């Protein structure tokens, strides 16, 4: 079985999805189901005090018993904020310690601050967290994060929420070539072909949120992404034909062509 293995656990789906930006929890639930994802990211935020506690929550739409919750550190700009957030997340999720680390450097571009990310990763790994780390597509940083002990490396395809797709497949290829932990493209995927390309390059998986939630028909796009990740993975495993200009290799026989 071609399962995705992260920190010693197998997952059938290589598509990981975020749970933000949906119209409501019902749309979230339908989209996540259509995606086939088993791992969903969530953010950790202050609870609204004075809010009616009987209001439905995300956990009702996506039961933690059915999905693997991956808490993220979205909105954190320093290592300290990220570490505090994940300590809270681990307590919130009953000791579950698989987490997504992201430390941003700029609220406009949302580009990661890899220096703070490395600082946070060091502390979190020492505290026993299994860190899936969001990072730039810098191959040296990616390898350094792996060597520190991150259980997966998650380079961006392009800016968070930008839908620009994979901007630098060469960097991604270098990261994949050198990695001994799963490489999961995270951020910037826009449509199905982007996800397929990521998988064809050899990624272990793809993580996306806006590509689905920001589509005109999120549930349909989720279904497309489900198929795209599988198609890209099969194409990768099948070993593509080489690209070449002069093949002299038509698909039909060259002899027996009618003529004079």
């Amino acid at each position, binding site marked *: 079985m071609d399962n995705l293995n992260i920190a010693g656990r197998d997952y059938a789906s290589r598509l990981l999805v*975020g*749970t*933000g*930006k*949906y119209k409501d929890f019902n749309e*979230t639930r339908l989209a996540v189901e259509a995606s086939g994802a088993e791992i969903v*990211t*969530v*953010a*950790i*935020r*202050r*609870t609204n*005090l*004075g809010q*009616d*506690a009987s209001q439905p*929550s*995300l*956990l009702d739409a996506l039961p933690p018993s059915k999905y693997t*919750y991956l*808490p*993220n550190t*979205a909105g954190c700009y320093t290592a300290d904020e990220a570490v*505090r957030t994940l*300590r*809270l*997340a681990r*307590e*919130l*999720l009953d000791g579950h310690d698989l987490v997504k680390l992201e430390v941003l450097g700029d609220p406009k571009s949302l580009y990661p601050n890899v220096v703070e990310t490395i600082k946070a990763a060091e502390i979190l790994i020492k505290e026993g967290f299994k860190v899936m780390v969001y990072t730039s597509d810098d191959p040296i940083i990616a390898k350094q994060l792996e060597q520190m002990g991150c259980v997966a490396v998650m380079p961006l395809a392009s800016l*968070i*929420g930008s839908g620009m797709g994979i901007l630098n497949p060469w960097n991604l290829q270098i990261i994949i070539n050198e990695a001994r932990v799963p490489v999961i493209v995270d951020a910037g995927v826009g449509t199905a072909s982007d996800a397929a390309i990521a998988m064809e390059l050899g990624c272990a998986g793809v993580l996306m*949120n*806006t590509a689905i939630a920001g589509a005109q028909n999120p549930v349909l796009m989720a279904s497309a992404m489900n198929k795209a990740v599988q198609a890209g993975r099969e194409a990768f495993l099948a070993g593509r034909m080489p690209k070449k200009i002069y093949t002299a290799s038509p698909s039909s026989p060259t002899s027996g062509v009618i003529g004079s």
Partner: protein
Amino acid sequence: MIELTINGAAKQFPQPLSVTQLISELELAGKRVAIERNGEIVPRSQFDAVALASGDRLEIVVAVGGG
């Protein structure tokens, strides 16, 4: 009377209370929350035992949709 800072806002309570009592006061009972007190996690198992003191700064968080 004690004053606590909860999620960045000051709140007063007539007398000292445990974390469990605070959760009840805030109508959060039954909701899945995690609590940080003065920079340290308060494990759920200690909610009854931890007595809050005036000046304590608390963060009470939940999981929400996010990427």
